[in-house]
């Protein structure tokens, strides 16, 4: 077995980055760039396959603190605390997590805490698992009933601009804003190895 130098490892990482970025859609990278430009410092999430690349990028960013949650509503509290302490944040989740958030959204609403959520959709376009459908079908309506400004994105090239718009309205005005990324752009989970 040959010994790898730090340079070798870096070069391998660069190579795999290039391969990954050539085959993967680059909207996660574009959203990440917008988060950087907006000086987002805390990224809180319950993972979803659709968010995997963005989560990786945020963990790797030295200026960002990425925190995995046990349940999505924790993120609303953490981002409220972050704002009290002078930091901007963002909450990533799957649509099933929106239901977990409903009562806690009152914290953001009552205090006008800025709250930006990026929600990857399930139970919507070409869903195979029927258990995802009940929550997926009421995600957008639930968010609107709770007072959120909702941006529904179906094309990958619109994702980053929607996130930018959501951050602007939330950070400038203390609104709750949610960007819903459709299964049309994420693709369908097929349950095959």
């Amino acid at each position, binding site marked *: 077995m040959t010994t790898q130098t730090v340079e070798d490892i870096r070069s391998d990482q660069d190579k795999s980055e290039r391969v990954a970025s050539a085959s993967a859609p680059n909207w996660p990278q574009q959203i990440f760039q917008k988060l950087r430009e907006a000086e987002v*410092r*805390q990224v*809180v999430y319950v993972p979803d396959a659709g968010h995997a690349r963005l989560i990786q990028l945020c963990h790797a960013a030295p200026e960002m*603190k990425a*925190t*995995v*949650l*046990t*349940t999505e*509503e*924790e*993120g*609303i*509290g*953490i*981002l*409220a*605390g*972050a*704002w*009290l*302490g*002078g*930091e901007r*944040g963002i909450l990533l989740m799957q649509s099933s997590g929106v239901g977990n958030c409903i*009562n*806690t959204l*009152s*914290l953001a609403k*009552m*205090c*006008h*805490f800025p709250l930006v959520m990026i929600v990857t959709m399930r139970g919507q376009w070409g869903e195979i698992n029927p258990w995802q459908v009940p929550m997926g079908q009421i995600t957008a309506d639930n968010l609107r009933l709770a007072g959120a400004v909702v941006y529904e994105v179906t094309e990958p090239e619109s994702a980053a601009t929607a996130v930018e718009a959501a951050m602007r309205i939330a950070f400038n005005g*203390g609104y709750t804003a949610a960007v819903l990324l459709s299964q049309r752009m994420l693709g369908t989970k097929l349950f095959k190895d």
Partner: protein
Amino acid sequence: MEQEDKLRRRHAVARILADRGDTLVVTGLGSPTYDCAAAGDNPLNFYLWGAMGSAVTVGLGLALAQPQRRVLVITGDGEMLMGLGALATTAAKKPENFAVAVIDNEHYAETGMQRTHTHDGIDLAGIARACGFREATTVRRADELNEVVAMLHKAKGPIFVDIKVSAARDPLVLPPWDGTFLKTRFRQALLGVRAAA
């Protein structure tokens, strides 16, 4: 009478806050919010009046944003039980400037004094310890409380103290409940001119 031997919640919270210095305080809804107001309103108190289960997470986000400042969450046993996962999330982040004090009367005082799980022996400090809090303990007497006050404000965190108190009710002392006011007042006190950004 057993109740008379127990710590009184107002005394316990006043004792803790007497030594707060410039500690940032987040309170859980219900009696802990009133207890902290009764000890003296402070712009660096952020009172929760709702969003039950969120006290620890608000404190955690604040502690991560302000690593040079001490953050203390003062909440109740019912509120803590609704957000137990937050203890795992907190312990995973290991915030050294963070402490939680649970004022544990073993009842839901706001809704008619129904018993909480802590009445049936559920050990909140044990849960915090198992999650990985650096220190986690339960206190029942005034001398034990005196010993942990400095730990809550100074010791390397995360720290968790469950304070067993009497279930007796105290007179209501209500702090402001305009959330936007509380948020802006807190940010102004902490961030100064940066609060406007």
